[in-house]
C-alpha cells in the first residue's frame, strides 16, 4: 500500500499550469466532472489538449495519470497484473485501476492508436455504472465520485482503419479543440516560449502561413507546441532561422519543395 501511495502523489499537479481558456471548455469539463461523465477531447496535434487536462486536474485538485496509447497496449497494461517479488506473487495495479482506486483523473492520450479490443475495457467505466472489473483479482472496483476518465484523439487525416468505435464514442462528453485565436496564441507563445511579444507575433504569423497550406499538400500546419519549442530554442541562444528550421520546418514535412517553401517563409519573416 505504501508503494501505491507514493505513486499517486507523483501524479499530483502542484503548480498551476499555464492555460489560456479559449471558450467555455473549462466550465463544461467542470460540469462533466460533477455529473460523473467522461471527457472526449478532439483536436489537431499540439493545440493544447494535454495541457488542458493538466490544468483541469490542477483546478479539481486531483492527480492526473496519463497513458499514451499505442497498438501494443494490452488490457493488463491498463488494469494491472501479478508480478513475482521475492518468490511471492504481488498484484500491481495498472494506471487505470490506480486512478479508479485513488479517485484520480485517468487520461488516455491518442486513444485511436490502441487496439479496439483494449479500449473496450473502459466501457463500464465510461457509462453510468462507473465500475472497473479486475478479472484476475475477481474484484469489481466502483469508481469514487472524484474519478474522471478522459480520452483524446486527433480526427485529422488518417487511416480509416483507425477510428473510434461508435459504442465507445457514445459515452463521452466531447470537447473540440482547435488552435487559439491569433491574439491568444501570441499570448501563449510569449508566456510559454518565454519570448518577447514581437517574436511571438512573428511565430504565430508563420504558423498561420503553414496552416494555409492544406491545399498544397501539408496535412497539418505548425501547432502551438511547435511554436513554443521554437521560441524556447531562441531563448536558449539558437539563431531564429535555425530554430524555425529544426522546430517547425523539419517536423512538419519531408517533402523537399514544401520544406523549401517553408524555409522561404521563415527567411521572409526574420
Amino acid at each position: 500500500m505504501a508503494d501505491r501511495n507514493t505513486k499517486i502523489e507523483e501524479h499530483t499537479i502542484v503548480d498551476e499550469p499555464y492555460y489560456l481558456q479559449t471558450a467555455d471548455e473549462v466550465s463544461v469539463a467542470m460540469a462533466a466532472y460533477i455529473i460523473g461523465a467522461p471527457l472526449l477531447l478532439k483536436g489537431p496535434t499540439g493545440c493544447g489538449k494535454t495541457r488542458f487536462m493538466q490544468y483541469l486536474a490542477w483546478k479539481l485538485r486531483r492527480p492526473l495519470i496519463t497513458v499514451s496509447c499505442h497498438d501494443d497496449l494490452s488490457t493488463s497494461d491498463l488494469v494491472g497484473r501479478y508480478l513475482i517479488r521475492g518468490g511471492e506473487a504481488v498484484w500491481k495495479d495498472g494506471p487505470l485501476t490506480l486512478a479508479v482506486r485513488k479517485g484520480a483523473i485517468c487520461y488516455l492520450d491518442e486513444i485511436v492508436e490502441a487496439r479496439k479490443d483494449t479500449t473496450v475495457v473502459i466501457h463500464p467505466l465510461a457509462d453510468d455504472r462507473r465500475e472497473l472489473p479486475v478479472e484476475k483479482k475477481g474484484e469489481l472496483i466502483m469508481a469514487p465520485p472524484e474519478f474522471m476518465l478522459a480520452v483524446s484523439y486527433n480526427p485529422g487525416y488518417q487511416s480509416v482503419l483507425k477510428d473510434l468505435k461508435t459504442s465507445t464514442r457514445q459515452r463521452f462528453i466531447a470537447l473540440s479543440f482547435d488552435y487559439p485565436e491569433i491574439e491568444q496564441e501570441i499570448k501563449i507563445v510569449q508566456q510559454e516560449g518565454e519570448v518577447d511579444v514581437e517574436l511571438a507575433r512573428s511565430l504565430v504569423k508563420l504558423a498561420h502561413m503553414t496552416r494555409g497550406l492544406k491545399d498544397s499538400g501539408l496535412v497539418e500546419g505548425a501547432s502551438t507546441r511547435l511554436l513554443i519549442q521554437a521560441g524556447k530554442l531562441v531563448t536558449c541562444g539558437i539563431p531564429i532561422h535555425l530554430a524555425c528550421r529544426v522546430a517547425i520546418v523539419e517536423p512538419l514535412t519531408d517533402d523537399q519543395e514544401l520544406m523549401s517553401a517553408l524555409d522561404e517563409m521563415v527567411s521572409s519573416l526574420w
Partner: protein
Amino acid sequence: MQITTLTKKFFALVEPSLPNEWEVEDALLALAQQQESIKNTILAQVPVIWPVSNALCFTFLTRIEEVIPLVEYGLLAEWVKELLDYYERGGLHAAQSCISWVPDFISRLQGKRGLRFEEAKGRLQPYVNGLAGREVLLLPAKNLYTNTSAIFLPEELHLFADRELCFLMYKFMVSFQWASIKLKTLAITESGDVAFTTHPLEAFFSTFTDSILGSRLYYFCETIRITCFLGQELPGLMRQVKRLLPALLSDFNNQEETSTVADLLQNMLLLRLEYKASSSTVEKVKQSINRCTDNTSNFTVSKRAAKAIYPLLDEQTLAEILGTPLFFQGELRLDAVVAAVMDKRKQDKKHFIGAFSTLLMQLPDSILDESESVSDELQASMPQSADQARVVIGNKHSEEKNQSREPVYIQIDNQEVKLTDELSSLTQDIIDDMGYLPEHYVSSAAGQAGQSKGTPDLYPATQGADSKAPVVYDEWDYRRKGFRKNWCVVVEKPIVPVKSTFIADTLNKYRGQIIRLRYQFEIMQTSEHFIRRQRDGDDIDFDALVESLADTVAGYPPSDRLFIRLLRDQRDIAVLFLVDMSNSTEGWVGKSIKEALVLLSEAMEMLDDRYGIYGFSGMRRLRCEIFPIKTIEEKYDTNVQQKITGIGPREYTRMAPAIRHMNALFADIEAKMKLLIILSDGKPEDYDDYKGKYAIEDTRQALLEAKSQGVHPFCITIDRHAQSYMAHMYGPVNYIFVNNVIRLPLLVPEIYKVLTT
C-alpha cells in the same frame, strides 16, 4: 557566296550522301544571307551533324538565325555537342527545343546561369499560398504583373549569375505583387456597375496631361507604400533585398544601416531630383511621398500624392527622376485586372443566383411571389444605377457588436431570408468586391426559383443498345426531409476500349515511380507484426511467461499462451473507385485522372485487395450513366487498359445515384473492409434543378447510406480552391483536395496507401 556555290560546298561536305537538291537549297537560303566568315563556321559543323541525323542538320540550317549569336561568342562547337546530346536523348523534338534555348546556353556558359520560373515554381507556389492564406496562382508570362487573382512572372531571370540570388528576386517579385493585391493597389472599388469595361484608375490617369507618366508616378507612390508594408510584414525578406538592390539600381544607396527599403527608394528619388528643382519643391515632394509610408493609409493617399507632385515638376524632370520602371514593380496591367474581376464577378453571380434560387425554392410561395413583384416594380420605377438601394443586407443582430461579421439575412420586401453558410460567405465576397449586393442578382434568383418551381422533370431516357437493364434509386430531398421514391434511373453502359499510345506513354513517363509504388505496395501486402500471448509461436513471450509464473504463485491457473508469433496481416479489402466523367474534366484533369488510374492499377496488382473502377456521368434524373471500367472480378489486362484510355468527358455530375449504385454493388461483396474512393473535380450538379444545396444534401445522404452499410467513402477532389461545402458533404476527414492536377497520378496510390495501412 551564291546559293549554288553553297549547295555545291554542302554536297561535298556530306559525301557520299546525295540529298534532294531542292531540299538542300531550301535549307541553305537563310545561310546565304550571312557574312562569309559566319557561313564557313556554320558549314564546318555540317559534317558533325549530318551523320547523326540528316533532318537535324536541315533544321539546324533553316533556324540558323537563332544560332548565330553562338558564332559571335565563339561557342558554336560547344553548343553543337549539346545539340547532339539532346537529339540522342529525345529525338528531333528535343533538339528543336535546344535550338530555342540558345540564349540560355550563352548566359549559362558565361556564368550567368539565371533561373527559370518552372524551376522556382515548386518553392514559390506554396510560399505565396502561405502568405495569402489562399491560393494565388503563379503563372509564367513575358513580363511581371498581376491581375489581382494570379501573379504572372517572367519565364526566366538572368539578373544574377548566382541562382540563389535569382530565386530571391523571384521571391521578392512574388511578395511584392502579393502585397499589392493585399493593399488593393489595383482593386476596383469605385465602380459597382457590373458592366464596366475600363478600370477606374484609367480615368484617374487620364486626368494627367501625360497619362503614362501619371500612372508611373502613382505606382511609384504605391511602391513606397507596399515596400513599407513589406518591411513590417516580412522584415527578413526586406533585409535580404536591401543588400541585393544596389547591384541593380546604381543610385540605390544602402549605406545607412538602419533605413528601410522604402526609405532608400524615397532617397533615391530625391537624390535624382537634386539640382533639378528648388529646395522648397524637393521638400514638398518629400512630404507628399512621406504620407504614403503611413501604415493605415490606402491607395487614395498615393493618388493624392501623385496629384500633388505632378504639377510641381515639368514632365521631362519627372520622367528622369522616375527613371526606368523598377524591375520588381512589374507592369500595371489594368486591362488584365478588369478581365479577371469581370470573370470573377460573372462566376460569383452565377454561383449566387444558382445557390440563392435553390434556397428560395424551399421557402413558402408567398415570398417568391412578393419578391418577384417587388423587383419588377422597382425595376420599372428606378434607374439602373440605383441597383444597390433595393436590398438591405446585413447581420441585423451583430451590427453594433462586430461590423466584420458575415451577412446572415437578405431582405426581400419585409421578409428576411436566412442564408446558408456557403451563401453567406459568397455574399460577403461579393460585397467585399463591389461594396454591395446588386438587387438584380436577388431578383434573378427569385425569378429562377419561381420558374423552376413545380416544373415537371420528364425527359425520355435514351439508352444504348448494349446497356444493362436500368436500376431505379430514390433521391433525397432535404426540403421535405424524405426520399423522392424511384427518382433516378441508373443504367450501366459499356465503355468502348480505345487503342492508343496513352498506356505505353504513361507507363514510360512514370516508370521510375511505378517501380517505387509497386515496391511500396508489395510491402503493404506483406505487412507483418508480432502477436503476443499465443499457444505456439516463434519465440517466448517473456511478459506472458512472467505473468503466468506469477499467476501460478498467486494460486491462479496459469495461462498457456506464452509465445509470440509473427503474423502476416490479412488484408481483406474491397475497394471501388468511382470516377467523375463530367464534361468539366476535359483536358488536363481528365488526363491526370486516367494516368492516376493506370498508376493505381499497376500498384494494386501487387496487392490482393479486390478493386473495381467505375465512371459516372449523365444528364437529368432519368439518364444517370455508370461506365464499368473494371469490375471487381475482372483482371487488370489490356482490355481494362484500353477502357481506361477510353475514359472521356461526357455530361453532368449527378453523383448521388452513382454512389447509391456503388452501395448496391458493395452489398454483394464480402470483405472486412469496404472502401469507396471517389475522384471528382467539383460539386455535384446536373442539367435540371439538381444543384446547390439540394445536390449537396442528396450526395451527403448517399454517402451516409454508404457508411451505414459499412462502406468507408473517401473523396479526392481536384479543385482550385477549398470549398466550404466539402466538409459538410463528405465529413471533415473524408476528403482531400488536390489543387495541382499534375500531382494527382502519384497522389492517388499514395492516398490509397495511407487509407489502408
